[in-house]
């Protein structure tokens, strides 16, 4: 202890070992809490239907791919005589299904539904971000008459829950033949996301000094070329963060999907709850669908995670 009673044996800004340990523990506990439901879904997808509804829940069980078999195939019940008369089973799924006195009738709808989800979510994200970037750039760089009112109007489309306008949209879509079409769903999700994209991106583009574009324009580039060569690369972080937010919304959206799609354009969220087995919900198949449903967004987020971290802490630190 020094004469003044103040010890400065350690840095005042760097965390000590103990604070690091406490912070680490909190992060681990939080991660466990958020990961357990995901883990449970993955675990359930590898259980048999009986194990999945056993009480108390089984923590130790023999893994089975029956959930995935049931997810990807439709089955029909047959008499034991009929099954006995069939040629030998060709795959593991075949065997599993026959052991339950059923045969595979054909592929299920999961692959077309999953494809729909990918097309609609990524399509609307691309459109929302593209429109949002151009709009935000316009608001950021040009003297737009009534700019603040227009921006407020754009934001105001998010004031109410989108589902509040479900009935008018349903009627409109029916009148113009957009119900149950992929293009209809892409347009709808784009409309919902574009206001978020404009506001997020305007913040990012405002932060890019105009001098860069001005320099490029003096150096012989047109405004659009300067935008592409100079503004876009520097807005990449903002664009990536915005794209993740838009994608998560479009990927998970349930209410409109239930209301407006039934076949052709149905996405995964309304499809998953209707995976019904014999005599009730087929929980392993539902869990298998959910587990697969998580993968694209996980991959996308991991690919862009550097940008995302910078994106969500954006504006918190002054340069």
């Amino acid at each position: 202890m020094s004469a003044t009673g103040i010890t400065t044996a350690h840095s005042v800004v760097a965390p000590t070992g103990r604070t690091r340990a406490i912070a680490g523990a909190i992060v681990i506990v939080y991660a466990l809490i958020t990961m357990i439901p995901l883990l449970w879904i993955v675990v359930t997808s590898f259980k048999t239907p009986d194990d999945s509804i056993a009480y108390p829940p089984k923590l130790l069980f023999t893994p089975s791919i029956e959930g995935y078999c049931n997810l990807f195939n439709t089955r029909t019940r047959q008499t034991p005589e009929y099954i006995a008369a069939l040629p030998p089973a060709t795959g593991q799924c075949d065997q599993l299904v026959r052991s339950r006195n059923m045969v595979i009738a054909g592929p299920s709808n999961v692959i077309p539904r999953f494809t729909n989800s990918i097309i609609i979510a990524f399509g609307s994200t691309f459109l929302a971000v593209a429109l949002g970037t151009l709009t935000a750039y316009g608001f950021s760089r040009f003297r737009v008459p009534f700019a603040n009112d227009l921006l407020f109007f754009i934001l105001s489309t998010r004031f109410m829950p989108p589902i509040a306008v479900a009935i008018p949209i349903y009627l409109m879509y029916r009148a113009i033949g957009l119900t149950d079409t992929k293009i209809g769903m892409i347009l709808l999700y784009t409309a919902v996301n574009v206001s978020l994209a404009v506001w997020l991106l305007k913040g990012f583009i405002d932060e890019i000094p105009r001098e860069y574009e001005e320099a490029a324009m003096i150096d012989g580039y047109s405004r659009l070329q300067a935008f592409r060569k100079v503004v876009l690369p520097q807005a990449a972080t903002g664009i990536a963060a915005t794209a993740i937010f838009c994608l998560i919304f479009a990927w998970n959206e349930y209410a409109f999907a239930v209301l407006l799609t039934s076949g052709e354009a149905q996405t995964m969220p309304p499809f998953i709850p209707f995976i019904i087995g014999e005599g009730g919900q087929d929980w392993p198949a539902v869990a298998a669908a959910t587990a697969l449903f998580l993968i694209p967004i996980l991959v996308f987020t991991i690919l862009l995670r550097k940008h995302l971290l910078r994106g969500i802490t954006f504006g918190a630190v002054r340069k």
Partner: protein
Amino acid sequence: MADVILSGVDKSFGPVRAVSDMSLAIADGEFLVLLGPTGAGKTTTLRLVAGLEPPDAGSIAIGGRDVTRIAPAERDVTFVFQQYSLYPHLSVYENLAFPLRSPTRRMPEAEIRKRVEEIAAMLRISQKLDNRATRLSGGEMQRVAIGRALVRRPAIYLMDEPLSSLDAKLRADLRLELKRIQQDLGATVLYVTHDQTEAMTMANRIGVISAGRLIQVGSPREIYTDPRNVYVATRLGQPAINLIPAGLIPAGSLPSGATTIGARTEHLRIARATNGAATAKVDWIEHLGDQNHLHLTVGNHKLVTLADPSSDLAGGDAVSLAFVNPLFFDTAGDRVR
């Protein structure tokens, strides 16, 4: 290279008149410095020449061609900005090559490489070409920014206080370097600064600007020795010119209308007072190393002048002051002769 002519150019931003009735001719190969304080309209003038702002009135011609309504890309000018000059997502090499790759220019890659390496050598940044633009010191960044202007041979180089963010030593080095390069290339330069040393050392001619108006244009010598009014006189000289009300110190016969006398160091003769002839008192002497600033009080008026380094004057000494061909100004601040 070409001459640039501004005639009667006006520019307002809302209620603010940034540039009023600006007429200025920059000769081919000339280094013209616009000198004035912050907000005088210097940067706006540059931006008007570059085409980044359209003028409200008047016209701008570069090399005999009226460019008033022409886009920046078509004007054949380069611009060195005060800051934010480098593209942070590109390497130093890519930054320097950027103007040469523009769609209006389209140069073969080998030619680009040759030019970039030549300029990098000239600015002594050859070893930094592969660095990210953001991984440079302030001085290096500004060299690259200047280099990006120099890779082209435009009609005119426009420079907006390119040295202001650098430390004193580097500023002095780059000042000389810039002047040398300009002479080697025979370049036409319009250079904006509020630093009188930059203006004095680099300019062929200085344009003194205030509140959007060009007050006086002339060689550095002319501006210093023959200012048109008090404002121009106070822009140059270190320590600043002393403005003394007429009558405070005997000055012989004044020109009619003169109410203020402007006296720089060379306009004052100081001698230790011999009994009773004292007109001023020495307050203190500021020793700056290379210079000694002598602070004097005359009546209740303060003067600052340079003291002879060998002078033995000290605080409290009584001295006599006499004018040697000072400058005279009337009540409006204009010169009277």
